[in-house]
């Protein structure tokens, strides 16, 4: 199977280049990650992140034939040859398919991604009805792979000011939690021309999410809450 892979090692390359690979696959190789591991057996200098190989850790996000996705759950049979692999767009490249995600995590941290509840801690669990808990479905499953944020043109333009779809999805995850008491503070934190309102509902994030989550809908809900609070 044929591949063209973005290669760049700042230690020796002046500039990045696409390198071609033709690799013989094993009959058991089903996913793109399997093929990348074959390639790495031939050329140990190919650098990428990978861990769980089942789509829950979020390590191996990359741009696959022009679309962001996780290598470990992208089926080889579905890919057109030569398969073009590039690092996630819009983030600084450290080496090959490895990008610097500091800015992405900084945005995630900026939404205070933790439950805020100042009541005295009860002896047992805080109660939450199954209906209240259902509000978190489609939100808490995020794996922080950055496929969504790095598919978003608004994020490409303002990665330092726009929280981006991943961070906003998590902001709503805490707003939606019946146990969280900081909705007002969370909305204040987002009421800003950049942090939230750079989202123009282009919906690339929804298309890119390998976990089938919907950041655009969550962002819509935050905007709704902001409108409700002003009227």
């Amino acid at each position: 199977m044929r591949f063209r892979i973005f290669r760049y090692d700042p230690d020796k390359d002046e500039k990045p280049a696409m390198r071609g690979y033709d690799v013989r696959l094993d009959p058991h190789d089903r996913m793109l990650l399997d093929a990348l591991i074959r390639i790495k057996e031939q050329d140990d200098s190919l650098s990428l992140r990978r861990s769980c190989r089942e789509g829950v850790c979020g390590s191996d996000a990359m741009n696959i034939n022009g679309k962001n996705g996780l290598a470990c759950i992208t089926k080889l049979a579905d890919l057109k040859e030569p398969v073009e692999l590039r690092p996630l767009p819009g983030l600084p490249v450290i080496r090959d398919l490895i990008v610097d995600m500091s800015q992405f995590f900084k945005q995630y941290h900026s939404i205070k991604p933790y439950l805020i509840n100042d009541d005295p801690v009860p002896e047992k669990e805080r109660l939450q009805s199954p209906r209240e808990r259902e509000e978190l479905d489609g939100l808490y499953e995020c794996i922080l792979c950055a496929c969504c944020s790095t598919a978003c043109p608004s994020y490409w333009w303002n990665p330092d000011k726009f929280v981006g779809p991943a961070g906003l999805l998590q902001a709503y995850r805490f707003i939606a939690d019946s146990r969280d008491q900081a909705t007002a503070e969370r909305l204040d934190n987002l009421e800003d021309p950049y942090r939230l309102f750079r989202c123009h509902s282009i919906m690339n994030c929804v298309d890119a999410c390998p976990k089938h989550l919907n950041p655009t809908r969550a962002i819509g809900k935050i905007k709704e809450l902001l409108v409700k609070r002003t009227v």
Partner: protein
Amino acid sequence: MALAKRSFDAVVVGAGGAGLRAALQLSESGLSVAVLSKVFPTRSHTVAAQGGIGAALGNMDEDSWLWHMYDTVKGSDWLGDQDAIEFMCREAPKLVYELEHFGMPFDRNENGTVYQRPFGGHSQNFGERPVQRSCCAADRTGHAMLHTLYQRNVRAHTQFFVEWMALDLVRDSSGQVLGVTALEMETGEVMILNARATLFATGGAGRIFWSTTNAFICTGDGLGMAARAGIPLEDMEFWQFHPTGVAGAGVLITEGVRGEGGYLLNKNGERFMERYAPNLKDLASRDIVSRAMATEIKEGRGAGPHGDYLLLKLDHLGPEVIDKRLPGIREISKKFANIDPVKDPIPVVPTVHYMMGGIPANYLGEVVVPQGGNPEAVVPGFYAAGECACASVHGANRLGTNSLTDLLVFGKAAAESMIKFLKENPGRKDLPKDAAERTLSRLARLDNQKNGESVAEVATEMRRTMQSHCGVFRFPDTLAEGVKKIRGIADRASRTQIKDKSRVFNTARLEALELDNLVEVARASMVSAEARKESRGAHDRSDQYKDGDRLEYKPVHMKPLTARTIEPKVRTY
């Protein structure tokens, strides 16, 4: 060559469930803490845990920590330490409530309490009937727990060293541990992280086998570092084969499927577990179910064109239950088995999943070694928790859900022991002159190696050898041969060669360094398996089994902290 050095009160190596729970305790107590992780914390392998956390909350039906303790002791085939098991089962509910207070999105009952599902080997009233004890968030409990713990650490301003790999333990001549050497992946820089107390929470090592549910990062780094620093490993022959890995892919299918009412079938459509475990059937402990499955396959009742797998049926649960309680399983089955479990059974085989052994520790998380006649002398400044540690709560076989319980309970306990130790020992000892020598010579060897084999070649050979010589059923001749082979492979691992010499994010170098750790674990496992001439828990030597004829290398703690000893008996489910 002198290395840069940074100093902290505490260094935590690993940021999975145990590392993060410990880090939280340490950060909140105001100590200076460095938490090292090879991967961004939420990418640690805890993220892949599915089924739940075992804790006797009693939300579904009557339950007690004493019954949880009994089940765990019995599950361990009486090789687990009863003091540590009592400690874990008593603490578990508190730690689960605490996690809920941190924001963990647990599934809920109508009355608002945490939902609990049945799980293998967990019972009511000392083995009478199954109990619902597993606290879960759908089939993504590990993901929910790991993210919640990370989030809580963000709140506590924990200092993370992300994508730093610890390379070797630093000990002085008295044996005290003074930190680690570590490599920053992005720059290739090596540093000494000096600590007054060091915790290993480095996780498992399933990657010594060919087929495993474990992530690529599960390379036994903590065990390799401990072994190279002269600390013996404990109970390494006990590897858990999870009954339900996707055939051919190795990806985990949670026991929660059987907890929710799924069951296993052979090629004749027979629910064969009824023959092997008449009482708990498909919810017997994992060693029993895996052995039953291997027997079915061996005796020609496996399904599929080659008769080499069994079928996990759950379509009768209906799409609603599957989508609500097991959505991740449906996703995995479609992706990795090409079937939709709403309609068809999942092809499954027993797959290496968990290491019961590890770095010997007591229930306070302190690392212990045999010394001057004392089988459990504490190593000052050194702590271990989670899968890399052997507390030992799992003994010869771990019960499902007890791994997450272990992470929480012993992550916190180890941190509390560290806090106490730091208070009582305020000074900082000098680093020995040769603190980084082992690390530097390993790195220099790799940089200068000529005519060596590739890392992938040697690693493949190791995995095949472990798989074929140290599987579900073990035989004296294949084990003896396995010991010879694995020694040869360890020797070859010391001469591997990498072509990539870049300083920047050199994953070839990392994989070579990981192989050093893997071979330590593989060798310890094979040698221990050959040496333990009895069948116990997950270690099955069909040739040698004599009931009551049991070996103990380190005395098992039969005396619990407050409860009465649970006396050994014949183990049936």
